[in-house]
């Protein structure tokens, strides 16, 4: 196989950066979920879309 | 007619509920003193009535305009004199007055009357605003507000920094405004001075309005 170094660098950086981003995202989610009441975590239910900015 | 009509208004400054459910009705031509400790929510209440604060919860209208949807109209029709004078430091007093008078669509005559009213020394007209004392700045800010002949006056500690003559001017401003049919909300700690010139007083505390006794 040719260009092994380039392949490792290219695919490796993609894995690394996406991996770090995903990990940080999930950690942030876990941390926040502990502080927000469960009834506020109705994922993507239709009611969310009905909320307007500024609504109580 | 109800000029100020607030029902359970909550206003957040960041996460902090500066107003926590304020309810207030003020009729046209009334003058109301807002009193209460520092941080009670008096300034926020006045800024709310000026259309400068977003309402988090509750409903209200100022001069018949809805506080959620018509704040642009409200802003044009009220005169707010707060802690910040809204003057440009680099301009002279005269330039500031003329600029703001034109911005609020006051005629030169109305501006002249307002300057007369606040007894601003004409010699100050060419002095940069940054060199004015706090009291002189306050008078200039009051003159700008007076020039637009607001239907609702919102005065936040208008006596602060003023000398004896200036304080008397503010007092007569309140009585004259109500006599002319305008409405006045004034937040002040100078209770003895303001009580005689207002119709009633209410206490603001903890972001709420505690209806107070009628003025003495």
């Amino acid at each position, binding site marked *: 196989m040719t260009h092994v170094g380039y392949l490792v660098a290219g695919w490796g950086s993609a894995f690394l950066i996406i991996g770090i981003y995903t990990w940080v995202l999930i950690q942030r989610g876990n941390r926040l979920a502990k502080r927000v009441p469960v009834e506020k975590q109705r994922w993507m239910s239709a009611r969310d879309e009905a909320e307007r900015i500024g609504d109580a | 007619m109800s000029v100020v009509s607030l029902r359970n208004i909550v206003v957040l400054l960041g996460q902090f509920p500066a107003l926590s459910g304020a309810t207030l009705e003020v009729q046209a031509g009334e003058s109301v003193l807002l009193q209460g400790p520092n941080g009670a929510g008096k300034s926020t209440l006045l800024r709310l009535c000026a259309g400068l604060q977003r309402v988090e919860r509750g409903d209200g209208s100022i001069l018949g305009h809805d506080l959620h949807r018509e704040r642009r109209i409200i802003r044009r029709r009220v005169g707010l004199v707060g802690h910040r004078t*809204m*003057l*440009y430091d680099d301009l002279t007093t005269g330039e500031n007055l003329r*600029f703001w008078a*034109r911005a609020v669509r006051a005629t030169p005559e109305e501006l002249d009357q307002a300057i007369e009213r606040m007894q601003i020394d004409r010699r100050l007209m060419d002095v940069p605003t940054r060199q004015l004392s706090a009291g002189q700045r306050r008078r200039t800010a009051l003159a700008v507000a007076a020039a637009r002949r607001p239907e609702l006056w919102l005065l936040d500690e208008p006596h602060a920094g003023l000398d004896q003559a200036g304080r008397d001017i503010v007092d007569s401003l309140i009585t004259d405004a109500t006599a002319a049919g305008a409405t006045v909300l004034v937040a002040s700690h100078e209770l003895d001075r303001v009580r005689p010139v207002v119709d009633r007083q209410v206490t603001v505390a903890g972001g709420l309005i505690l209806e107070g006794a009628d003025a003495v």
Partner: protein
Amino acid sequence: MLSDVLLIAGKDLRVELRSRIALNQVVPFALLVLVLFGFALDADSSTLATFTPGLYWVAVVLAALLAVHRSVSLEDGDGADEGLLMSGLHPASVFLGKAVALIAELLLLALVLLGGVLILYGAPVDDVTLLLLTTVAAVIGVGAAGTLYGALLSGQRARETILPILLLPVLAPVVIGASRAFGDAMGSVATDGWSWLLSLTGFAMLYLAVGSVAHGALMEEA
């Protein structure tokens, strides 16, 4: 409408006249940038002459950042921004007024710098009309975009640091276009400077329009 625009522009220019920030600080800064380019690129005057269009517009854009910052910060002195909000002036008038004042200042800056590069870098000029029209069109674009992104950051503590991040990528096309048109006008690049001038004009019009529409939403209280 027009009188409101002139009222705001006149106010901004009068403040500038009193404080002399643009004249005493921004113009010298831009000239210093030109001098530093000269040091950095060696004293070989033919190199400098070749790169004059690019160096010139980079210097203008860098100096424009300072001017935009000044234009925004003079509103947040003693609550003047709220005064404008309460005055009932149409947001588009306020935007155009501030843009006109900023453009006037930038135009002065650009002309001083133009003299600077002609003398310091010894750049030849083939087409004076193209040179001047390009300057006007590009400066209007920079002024309009600068006023819009400046208004976006009004009242923000981190304004100094965020403004360049926001504004420089937006101004990249202006730098490209104005440098090309200058290159044509100075005879150093074989390109059609007039079509670049046309695209710069388009950029300026677009940002004047977008700014007029968007400024109302940006002026609203935080």
